[in-house]
């Protein structure tokens, strides 16, 4: 890329794309296809390119009938209803329906740009009708997109840390970038900002969560520090989404601080009890299937002292869920397990005994909302409640794992950034996580972040190129 840099010094690009994940690449490729000259600035080194997209696995898109990788139709209304359920109405119907309509058969476009889908899988997520799985996962998709973008002639610069934007009267002029220790100014006729949320900036999280944020684990890329989000908001862009909220799930406390990705997940909670550091239960572990509940457990654990919790199961349940990366902590008695988890042995024994005493036997079925529940226990356990009494006993430590933040910039259906004065920016576009709060005000739906990124990445790329072209006339 060195030669490119020199060659491009002082050049005004048609479209500058800031970010290097799914939305950024979709924007860059689409803008290039519209004939624009494109520069893409990825903050991460080449090895860690792709933002959170490198940790994804699938994408949800609307389709009238099944195909090689989707088992059946998924129409707009069902899609929208699913979204309404997870967001509890916190969405913008017009933009949401627009996203869904634009997502129709998007798999074909993805395949034309190098994506390969996996034939519908036998996994336990029950997503094979609604979600298309990338062969090899998100990093393989990113590799394909980068390779395609390079072939098309998109200029790509890694380790390019954009720290400021020159904006005049709501119009983008140039970006200030640190690239290999030098400070550069890159001018362009329009800009697509697709640089994600701020979930990797612990200081920013502390504004809302206080010191608790020190115990949060960031599941994805350490490069999403929200710098562009802050710059845009400081320079007059209209915010969207609750700044205090983030999407957090309960994950293995032994995970690395950043970038642990999918393997840090734990699916054991519904099959045992979960206690805080004082050995007390604090929520109904069996309220619903884990895929429907794991997202609230991030916040539940975040509210416990020291942001730590322990899921405790016995040997009956060990093989009921996906194997974990870190082995469970094993003991022959509850007392011994408490010792290994640094919990009060007497308290944990009491909690387990109380729980066991209130379990009302039913017919256990891990695949259904069964009738195994507790009676007279507070909080109750509504399903899969079985006595914890068959050694060995196992413990898994849990911490909140942040996936993304909801705060973003408001955009219109053309991906154009809205300013606080009510005007639309002439040449600033936003795509991906930085604007997903427009549509996803709360909760999460598997594979929908990638939908938003792909749909708005494409729209932003096309609109940015159109704007650059009109200015050249």
């Amino acid at each position, binding site marked *: 890329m060195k030669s490119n840099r020199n060659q491009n010094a002082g050049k005004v690009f048609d479209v500058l794309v800031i970010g290097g994940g799914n939305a950024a690449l979709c924007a860059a490729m689409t803008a290039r296809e519209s004939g624009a000259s494109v520069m893409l600035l990825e903050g991460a080194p080449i*090895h*860690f390119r792709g933002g959170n997209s*490198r*940790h994804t*696995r699938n994408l949800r898109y609307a389709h009238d009938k099944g195909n090689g990788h989707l088992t059946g139709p998924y129409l707009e209304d069902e899609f929208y209803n699913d979204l309404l359920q997870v967001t509890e109405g916190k969405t913008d119907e017009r933009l949401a329906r627009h996203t869904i309509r634009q997502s129709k058969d998007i798999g074909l476009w993805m395949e034309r740009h190098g994506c*390969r889908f*996996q*034939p519908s*899988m036998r*996994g336990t997520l029950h997503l094979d009708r609604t979600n298309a*799985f990338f*062969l*090899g*996962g*998100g*990093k*393989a998709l990113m*590799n394909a997109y980068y*390779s395609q973008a390079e072939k098309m002639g998109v200029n790509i610069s890694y380790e390019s840390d954009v720290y400021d934007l020159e904006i005049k009267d709501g119009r983008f002029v140039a970006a200030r970038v640190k690239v290999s220790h030098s400070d550069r100014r890159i001018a362009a006729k329009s800009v697509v900002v697709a640089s994600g949320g701020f979930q990797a900036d612990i200081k920013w999280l502390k504004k809302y969560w206080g010191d608790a944020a020190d115990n949060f684990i960031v599941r994805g890329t350490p490069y999403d520090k929200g710098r562009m989000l802050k710059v845009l908001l400081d320079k007059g862009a209209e915010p969207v989404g609750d700044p205090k909220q983030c999407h957090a799930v309960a994950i293995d406390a032994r995970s*690395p601080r950043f*970038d642990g*990705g*999918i*393997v840090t*997940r734990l699916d054991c909670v519904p099959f045992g009890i979960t206690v805080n550091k004082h050995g007390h239960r604090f929520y109904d572990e069996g309220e619903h299937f884990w895929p429907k509940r794991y997202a609230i457990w991030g916040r539940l654990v975040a509210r416990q002292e020291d942001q730590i919790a322990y899921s405790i199961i016995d040997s009956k349940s060990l*093989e009921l869920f*996906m*194997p*974990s*990366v870190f082995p469970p902590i094993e003991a022959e008695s509850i007392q011994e397990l408490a010792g290994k988890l640094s919990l009060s042995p007497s308290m944990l024994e009491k909690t387990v005994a109380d729980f066991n005493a209130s379990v009302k036997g039913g017919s256990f079925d891990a695949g259904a909302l069964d009738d195994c529940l507790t009676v007279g226990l507070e909080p109750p356990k509504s399903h899969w409640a079985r006595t914890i009494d068959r050694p060995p006993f196992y413990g898994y430590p849990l911490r909140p794992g942040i996936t993304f933040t909801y705060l973003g910039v408001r955009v219109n259906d053309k991906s154009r950034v809205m300013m606080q004065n009510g005007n639309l920016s002439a040449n600033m576009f936003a795509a991906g996580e930085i604007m997903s709060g427009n549509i996803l005000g709360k909760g999460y739906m598997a594979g929908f972040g990638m939908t938003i990124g792909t749909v708005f990445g494409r729209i932003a790329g096309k609109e940015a190129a159109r704007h650059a072209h009109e200015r050249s006339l």
Partner: protein
Amino acid sequence: MHMSAASKEVQRVMTFCNACRYCEGYCAVFPAMELRRTFSSQDLSYLANLCHNCRDCYYACQYTPPHEFELNIPKTMAELRLETYREFCWPKGFRGLFKRNVLTLVLAILVCFAVIFGTMLMFQGKEVVFSNHTGSAAFYKIIPYQVLVTVPVTIALLVLLVVAKEFATFWRRTGGSLPSFLNLRAHGIAVTDVLFLKYLEGGGQGCTYPDGQFSMVRRWLHHLVFYGFALCFGATVLAAFYEHFLHLTSPFPVFSLPVILGTIGGIAILPGTTGLLYLKTKLDRAPATGKSTAMDIGFLILLFMVSLTGLLLLIFRETPAMGTLLAVHLGFVAVFFLTAPYGKFVHAIFRYAALVKNADEQILSKL
């Protein structure tokens, strides 16, 4: 149970993979992994040999170095695979041959050449060996018919015995049973997997070999070598059949079936081996082990020489060079078979065994 460092590393890697599973569409290793929650050393030896080293998972993996998890599936698999070659080798005293593969090859070549030339010159004399022989039974003027039959047949039986023994060792040591070995449907699936090199297809776009770009080149080159070798082998068996049962005497005419098959086979092996060697020079070494380079290259060069000398013998069989070329060709053939159970060739034995085991357990898991 004692586990080697390579086994422990594959075990560590598989534990991560089993919690991720993003790569399950690439090959047979991941679906086989998903049938397990923990990995015994038997499982690991099996999985290492089920891996075809297509490297698709390496480029797709979020956790390759410099990520702190440092997963490198193809490399760790290759290192354990190499260990299993030594471990399942028979007789055990020959294990060291894997470690000194180049020396083994060079010594084998020297010994075979010395024996063949020595005996030829001793028994037939210079005049016979270096003069022109044409027409029926020309080869037998250089090497008597009985010798040309008994020596290769003895070598073939020996090699077959060793290969069978190594297969059986692999089968037993990876937890295989007799009933699973007798699962004919599993053999059928495994044979198809081999004939189409299904697991170098990487879900349709090929392997990321020699670098991060998907390509079918390696698969096609391997096909050239495999089918070329099969044709040459078939030609030899057919020639023996002609001699013994049809009472035809070699050398056979250029347009006879054994010569046609052998020629096509030989011609296929040349670009096949050359191409595979060329790809190795372009290799992204990050997902590769350096420990098998000499063995891999030695095997390809040997195969190349077997087919090159065979073709030269065909071209110059009516000149005084025939005697020398015959000796050289037979020398390389002898080296090829004698060293087969102690070098790269064993990948074919264990890969096939692993594919049968895989087919068998996948059939069982779907019952």
